[in-house]
């Protein structure tokens, strides 16, 4: 997997400074072109918010600038001598939780921004909870607005303790927590000269050394969900898709699921030609030894094989206005397979403040909970914690085609 590219998402509550921090990172690492910087300055002055409102670097929509909030994820790209970054600057407002989940779902690292003077808010806990569920393992935490308390160490230590506690309960690796002022640029790219008691990395230094590429791969078997069947000249078919899990190799025994037919990989062709083996994240087409009726929605897998089932226990984040309750019929999309599905029951809801599970019969918008689902077609599924691709699905409203839920196979628990 390429490690020269790090994907990170900013998360945390509204008004704690996520967009300002991203703006600061981009400006101080000179990622903005002159005309882009001039446009941000002009927009800031026009709206009377100072000479340079750093949040305008990513808050590009008219409504966002009018209201001074982020509505949807902005994607920005940056490069340092160490690596390239794909930045998803996510909205903090609870109303836009689905957009935050969109931005965080492909992240290697979550950059948590919180107002150190206000402590750990419920919305920050919600975002941490969602990031944890989505399988993000690494947190870099910017304890922001330290300039407002004259870099008081006790304020920082209190937040640090709360963050470490929540991170442990959600199963994150030990976070890197940095006291910063996004507004003034302290400890973002350059170390702060006002701060005498912190000697850890700046936010940028932490990003430069954070682990990348983990989300696409696992040790729990190679999978090729078939997207499309290609006809070869002179007869024969090959099966196209993107590999996930672990590396797929010519000569490997694979099982076609859900049919349960065993066969062998006899050829792999990637975008740059024939290959002996292909890593997760590569789009390939493969040739198999046996003539099968494989098609879109089937998967070729190595051991340990996915589970073939019509019944799923999952953790879902619900995005629709109307609540989710048992008996609801939806469409479910899992890898390249779409099938009608019934949500048989909602069994519990996550209390994001206490990080506990409470019994429940429905989920309202932006709530997370456990559900059981029956699908019309059998699916070949992995547990989300073992394989993010084989373990994830979305639920779709059959009438409007809106995506109404993100689902992760398996049940979340808290330490």
């Amino acid at each position, binding site marked *: 997997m390429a490690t020269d590219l790090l994907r990170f998402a900013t998360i945390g509550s509204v008004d704690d400074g996520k967009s300002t921090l991203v703006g600061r990172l981009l400006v101080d690492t000179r990622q903005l072109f002159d005309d882009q910087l001039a446009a941000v300055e002009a927009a800031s002055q026009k709206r009377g918010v100072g000479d340079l409102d750093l949040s305008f670097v990513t808050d590009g*929509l008219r409504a966002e600038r009018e209201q001074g909030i982020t509505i949807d994820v902005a994607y920005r790209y940056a490069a340092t001598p160490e690596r390239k970054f794909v930045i998803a600057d996510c909205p903090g407002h609870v109303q836009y939780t689905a957009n935050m989940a969109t931005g965080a779902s492909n992240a290697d690292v979550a950059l948590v921004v919180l107002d150190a003077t206000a402590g750990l808010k419920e919305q920050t806990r919600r975002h941490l909870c969602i990031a944890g569920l989505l399988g993000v393992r690494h947190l870099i935490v910017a304890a922001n607005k330290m300039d407002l308390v004259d870099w008081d160490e006790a304020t920082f230590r209190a937040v640090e303790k709360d963050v470490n506690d929540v991170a442990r309960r959600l199963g994150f690796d030990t976070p890197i927590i940095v006291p910063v002022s996004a507004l003034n640029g302290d400890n973002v790219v350059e170390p702060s000269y006002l701060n005498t008691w912190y000697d850890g990395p700046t936010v940028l230094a932490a990003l430069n050394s954070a682990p990348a590429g983990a989300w696409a791969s696992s040790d729990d078997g190679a999978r090729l969900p078939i997207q*499309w069947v290609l006809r070869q000249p002179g007869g024969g078919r090959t099966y*196209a898709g993107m590999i996930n899990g672990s590396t797929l190799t010519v000569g490997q025994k694979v099982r076609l699921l859900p049919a349960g037919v065993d066969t062998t990989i006899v050829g792999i062709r990637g975008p740059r030609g024939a*290959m002996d083996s292909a890593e997760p994240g590569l789009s390939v087409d493969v040739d198999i030894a046996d003539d099968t009726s494989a098609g879109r929605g089937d998967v070729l897998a190595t051991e340990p094989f996915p589970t073939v089932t019509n019944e799923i226990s999952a953790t879902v984040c619900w995005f629709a206005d109307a609540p989710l309750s048992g008996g609801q019929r939806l469409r479910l999309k899992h890898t390249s397979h779409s099938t009608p599905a019934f949500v048989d029951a909602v069994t519990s809801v996550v209390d994001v403040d206490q990080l506990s599970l409470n019994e429940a019969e429905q989920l309202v918008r932006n709530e997370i909970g456990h559900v059981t689902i029956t699908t019309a077609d059998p699916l070949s599924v992995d547990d989300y914690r073992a394989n993010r691709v084989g373990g994830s699905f979305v639920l779709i409203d059959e009438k409007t085609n809106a*995506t109404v839920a993100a689902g992760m196979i398996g049940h979340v628990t808290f330490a």
Partner: protein
Amino acid sequence: MATDHLDILESHAIFIIREVVAECERPVLLFSGGKDSAVLLHLATKAFAPNKIPFPVMHVDTGHNFQEVIDYRDERVDTLGLQLVVASVQEAIDKGRVPDPGPLGMRNRLQTTALLDAINANKFDAAFGGARRDEDKARAKERVLSFRDRFGQWDPRAQRPELWQLYQGKVNPGEHLRAFPLSDWTELDVWNYIRRENVPLPTIYFAHMRPVIKRDDMWLSVGDFVHPQPGEVIERHMVRFRTVGDASCTGAVRSSADTLDAIIKEIETSNVSERGATRADDRFSETAMEDRKREGYF
């Protein structure tokens, strides 16, 4: 062969193209002849090789073209055996669908009507575009699969959640998707990929001598669609184009870069963004791109 970030971008784009073709009934690829759509076409070729690309390409033709780009378009269509649909702005003007801006008026915004009319007439339910999120702050907000209602409108306040790589492309009749497989590519990624893959391009991307005038701080090519106004002086300079759009509002940049290596070197050290340097259509207001996109623009 080690996997680098261009391999990941390439594979991701191929994945998106295959997914949209599998999920949608009648996709089309928007092919302007610009470098981004050239890369998109190259990726579509790879996604379905050895089979032919299973969808037509569409050129939204403002009528204000660079001849080099039209030649290039026709050569590509011919070589790859593609079906070409032309959505003509001139036709929309002639039919009275849009007001005539006059022989020298800017036709950029009029493309939206021609585009949406052609999507409706052909019942396309998905249109691939080469737009990238690094181009503009409104594009930076847009999903890879971006939903358009029956009126062709984009609602940036109500985008579908798009998690992981689960792209879902179902739409009801009359609605359609825009699909942007190059969303996460930067200008530099596109050029590095063109160099790696030897993707053919129109000649105007490479430095050449051309008569130009300076207008609104941009070098415009003097020709059928740009005539010098009083006070404007025709000069001859070595220039190249960083983007390809309507000839009346696409600026050239002064450059001696006549090879891919030289172009990449130049972009790596540029202080001005691609659209900032070359697009008059983005200069109308703070949110010019968002406003056009809401109406159904690319």
